[in-house]
């Protein structure tokens, strides 16, 4: 008994004592009845025995009758069934002890007669109930004390006791106590025996429950040959029988067309609860199950050392159902291969015991057998289906499979089916398909002649028209054969439902018009069905792919800049495309960073690998690059910093990166390169040229790499093109060939940068399924003309870029250093004012225009579109004298729609506009 084994520890004395006493849980009904009956018979014997004993002792008849009355009276109470069990036991107890008292009394207190008490105490203990027991012991004490005082001779037969009745009552009670202890020990031992038997019964029942549950599951599964139903039944029953809150069955599927992949069913949780997660990965907690290394049962998985080992989630991903209790068993096939795994969870810890584990293991073995049956059955059915199809049709089918699975776009899958049908089987082909959440759409291939119109299938089905063959086929999931000619002669058509894994995707209709061209007959129904089955698989495949690919692109785009920043004098555009066939996120990225002094940082990089890890590394790199760049670090120092950041992260933490700082005023691009492809410069009038810079090691390759800076000159109108290897890499040719193709493709490109990027991407990757991600960033240094026009956001951040653009323009128009500085300060004052006083939230922009008059005067106007008030329109206190000192003329033109500040200054050495 667990209670006895438990160390008393610091528990109270009372509690410890209680451990050694009987529990007094009461007897099972049947046992109690047997014992009570024995006691009642004993009392009946006493009822008879007492008067006989009294007569034998020579008592007078009155006395005999009086002494004989109490016992039968109490015996009757004990035997009375209307009373509760305990009341009857108490009555019996009183009767037994009263018998003893009367016998002692009748004997005149003979000491030997006291033995009767001891026997009776033993008998009372048969009830294994504290109330009758205590009643009995109390009875002895009170009887000895009370009667001993009132009539000592009735209890005791020796002088000492007669003179000190309470003392002797105590002595008697001591012996009674000893007898009671002996009875208690027996009682306690009896209880343990009963308990043990109950436990054994319980265990036996549990065993039977497990065995019968498993038997039930086994028969249920063995009778089912539908794979989907089997796995769902396995999941449901296992979840129920293990007492899990939810369960999942992940299992591998082999398919001729699709290869191996993994599916799952759920129980106790809606599919949506898991739809946003990837399949479980080979983490330390999952791996043993998928490797078939045995059961994993954990009372609290969050405390398990194997838990939370792997990035990026380190435990359950956010939004996962809460799991504390965790149980997982492998489902292993007859050949020892792992078919899948059953996983159970419960939000509270310690929910799975050994029984749950045995249930899970048992169900797993049944599941393995059932799934094996399903597979054998399915392959047999497949064999039977193909046996019905003649050899040339088989060839057609295998050709169809190749065509179907060569595309991952649903529309081209449909086109592949319909053109195959019309070329090789029939006169026309109709495909009615259901887009999720939409009505049926139809694709028509081949010629629909007048004769064909006799077939009601040719008219597109209306929703709810139950008689239309297409709707019939979808509803019944059965092939429908329709014919307009006599005895099933043409015009005729086979309408086959395309049944996917979960739903009907539409119908495939194969139709013939003339007898002469009748290549399709009823005999071809198996071919049509097989074709429809394969088309359904291919379409589901394509839809799944499209969905996952969209997801990957969304994630990637969320990590790239939403829009490129506008920097005066520098234009930029970018394209990014996720590669196929994988659907994982790639690590390509680009960035444009406005720096101080109107300079611009431009970067394109590629993180090694794919998936979440690559994407998160890319995010970190981008942030770190921005931090270094804002800090004023040059390209070389920036790359060294990023390299240090990545080093020590292991082989998976590598990235290539080209980073440059474009200085519009100096007309330079200063580049450093960490293992990335060279930057291409496009200049009108000369061929595209790669700006070779010493290629450093990729970031993260060696702890202390250094990167050389190389400056290239840029003229107004020059475009620099940064890109990732997805643009130029092809499996069939070398990188050099790819770079050469890029050079040729950019020899003649549109001037609009967005179109330029699209055009370059199209020319290099068009027509092939790009296997890698691809990013292109194009940046142009705007040419300086005689007229300067800048539209700027009302944000102090634009001032640096604005000054750089104005500086370039002034220098190009012949301003000297002092003139440039002073006009810049004057412009800056005017622009600062425009920003401070710009109007409402809609028109948060201002415009700066500059031109040089034929007389050699520079005129710069700064216009805002805010409704200034008279007071606010003052150019700031210290600003005005500065402007006035630095220009020849200052005009302020206030209008309701905005204010224009015009600055005029003659240049000492202006280049005439004609020359500029």
């Amino acid at each position: 008994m667990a209670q006895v084994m438990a160390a008393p520890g610091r528990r109270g004395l009372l509690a410890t004592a209680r451990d050694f006493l009987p529990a007094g849980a009461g007897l099972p009904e049947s046992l109690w009845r047997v014992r009570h009956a024995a006691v009642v018979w004993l009392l009946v014997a006493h009822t008879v025995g007492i008067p006989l004993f009294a007569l034998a002792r020579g008592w007078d008849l009155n006395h005999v009758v009086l002494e004989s009355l109490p016992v039968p009276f109490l015996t009757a109470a004990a035997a009375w069934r209307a009373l509760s069990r305990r009341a009857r036991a108490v009555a019996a107890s009183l009767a037994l002890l009263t018998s003893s008292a009367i016998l002692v009394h009748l004997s005149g207190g003979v000491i030997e007669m006291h033995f009767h008490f001891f026997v009776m105490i033993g008998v009372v203990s048969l009830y294994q109930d504290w109330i009758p027991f205590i009643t009995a012991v109390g009875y002895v004490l009170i009887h000895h004390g009370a009667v001993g005082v009132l009539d000592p001779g009735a209890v005791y037969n020796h002088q000492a006791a007669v003179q000190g009745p309470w003392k002797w009552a105590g002595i008697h009670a001591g012996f009674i106590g000893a007898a009671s202890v002996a009875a208690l020990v027996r009682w306690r031992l009896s209880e343990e025996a009963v308990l043990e038997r109950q436990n054994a019964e319980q265990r036996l029942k549990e065993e039977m429950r497990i065995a019968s549950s498993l038997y039930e599951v086994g028969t249920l599964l063995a009778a089912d040959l539908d794979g989907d139903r089997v796995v769902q039944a396995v999941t449901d029953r296992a979840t129920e029988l293990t007492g899990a809150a939810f369960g999942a069955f992940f299992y591998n599927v082999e398919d001729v067309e699709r290869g191996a992949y993994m599916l799952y069913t759920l129980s106790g949780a809606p599919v949506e609860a898991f739809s946003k997660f990837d399949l479980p990965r080979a983490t330390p907690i999952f791996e043993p199950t998928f490797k078939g290394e045995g059961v994993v049962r954990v009372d609290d998985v969050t405390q398990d050392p194997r838990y939370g080992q792997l990035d990026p989630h380190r435990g359950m991903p956010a939004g996962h159902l809460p799991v504390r209790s965790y149980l997982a068993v492998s489902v292993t096939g007859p050949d020892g291969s792992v078919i899948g795994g059953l996983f159970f969870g419960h939000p509270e810890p310690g929910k799975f015991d050994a029984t749950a584990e045995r249930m899970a293991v048992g169900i797993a073995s049944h599941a393995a057998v059932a799934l094996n049956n399903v597979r054998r059955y399915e392959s047999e059915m497949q064999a039977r289906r193909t046996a019905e199809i003649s050899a040339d049709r088989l060839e057609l089918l295998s050709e169809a499979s190749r065509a179907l699975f060569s595309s991952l776009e649903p529309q081209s899958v449909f086109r592949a089916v319909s053109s195959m049908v019309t070329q090789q089987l029939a006169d026309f082909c109709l495909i009615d398909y259901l887009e999720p959440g939409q009505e049926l759409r139809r694709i028509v291939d081949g010629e629909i002649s007048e004769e064909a119109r006799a077939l009601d299938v040719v008219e597109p089905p209306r929703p709810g028209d139950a008689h239309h063959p297409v709707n019939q086929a979808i509803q019944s999931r059965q092939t429908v054969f329709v014919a307009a000619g006599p005895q099933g002669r043409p015009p005729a058509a086979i309408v086959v439902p395309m049944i996917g894994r979960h739903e009907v995707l539409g119908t495939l209709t194969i139709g013939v018009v003339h007898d002469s061209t009748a290549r399709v007959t009823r005999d071809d129904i198996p071919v049509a069905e097989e074709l429809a089955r394969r088309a359904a698989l291919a379409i589901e495949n394509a839809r799944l792919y499209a969905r996952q690919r969209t997801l990957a692109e969304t994630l990637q785009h969320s990590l790239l800049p939403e829009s490129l920043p506008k920097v005066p004098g520098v234009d930029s555009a970018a394209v990014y495309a996720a590669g196929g066939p994988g659907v994982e996120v790639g690590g390509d990225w680009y960035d444009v960073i406005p720096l101080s002094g109107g300079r611009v940082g431009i970067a394109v990089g590629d993180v090694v690998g794919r998936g979440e890890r690559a994407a998160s590394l890319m995010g970190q790199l981008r942030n770190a690059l921005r931090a270094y760049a804002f800090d004023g670090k040059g390209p070389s120092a920036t790359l060294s910093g990023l390299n240090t950041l990545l080093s020590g992260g292991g082989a998976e933490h590598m990235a290539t990166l080209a980073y440059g700082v474009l200085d519009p005023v100096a007309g330079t691009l200063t580049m450093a390169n960490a293992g990335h492809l060279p930057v291409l410069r496009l200049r009108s009038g000369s061929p595209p040229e790669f700006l070779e810079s010493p290629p450093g090691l990729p970031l993260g390759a060696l702890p202390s790499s250094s990167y050389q800076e190389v400056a290239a000159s840029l003229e107004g109108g020059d475009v620099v093109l940064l890109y990732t290897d997805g643009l130029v890499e092809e499996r069939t040719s070398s990188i050099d060939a790819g770079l050469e193709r890029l050079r040729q493709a950019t020899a003649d490109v549109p001037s609009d940068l967005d179109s330029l990027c699209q055009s370059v991407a199209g020319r290099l990757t068009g027509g092939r399924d790009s296997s890698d991600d691809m990013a292109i960033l194009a940046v142009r240094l705007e040419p300086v003309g005689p007229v300067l026009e800048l539209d700027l956001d009302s944000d102090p951040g634009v001032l640096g870029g604005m000054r750089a653009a104005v500086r370039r323009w002034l220098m190009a128009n012949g301003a000297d250093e002092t003139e440039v500085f002073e006009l810049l300060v004057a412009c800056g004052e005017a622009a600062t004012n425009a920003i401070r006083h710009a109007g409402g939230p809609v028109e948060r922009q201002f415009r700066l225009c500059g031109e040089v008059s034929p007389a050699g005067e520079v005129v710069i106007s700064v216009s805002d579109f805010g409704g200034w008030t008279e007071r606010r329109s003052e150019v700031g206190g210290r600003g005005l004298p500065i402007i006035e000192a630095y220009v020849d003329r200052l005009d302020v033109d206030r209008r309701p729609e905005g204010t224009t500040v015009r600055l005029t200054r003659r240049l000492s050495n202006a280049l005439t506009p004609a020359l500029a």
Partner: protein
Amino acid sequence: MIDVTLDGRVAIVSLQGEIDMTSVGPVTSEFDSRIPTDAAGVVIDLSEVTYLDSAGIQMLFDLIRSARTSRLSVSVLVPESSMLNSLLKITNVEQACPVVSERAAAIQAAAEHQSY
């Protein structure tokens, strides 16, 4: 953006690049935190400044006032050739503290001049 070197008990604070309304905040907070507590004077060195406008002039006055409050004497160093000279003249910076074109003179001014 800001560089602090010491010459005796004079801190030479060198500002760099373009100073407009976007850079006055960072410069001011760095200025306050990077002057050593035992410094007696400060030279605000504008040799490397390529652009300064009214927001920068306002900052200069603030820096001078803040230094004064900390009982530091201040001078501004601007080389003869700097474009900034005209700007400082227009805005009368020299009425707030000595504007000096030589480094040694600027340090001396910051060490001695206490009477503004």
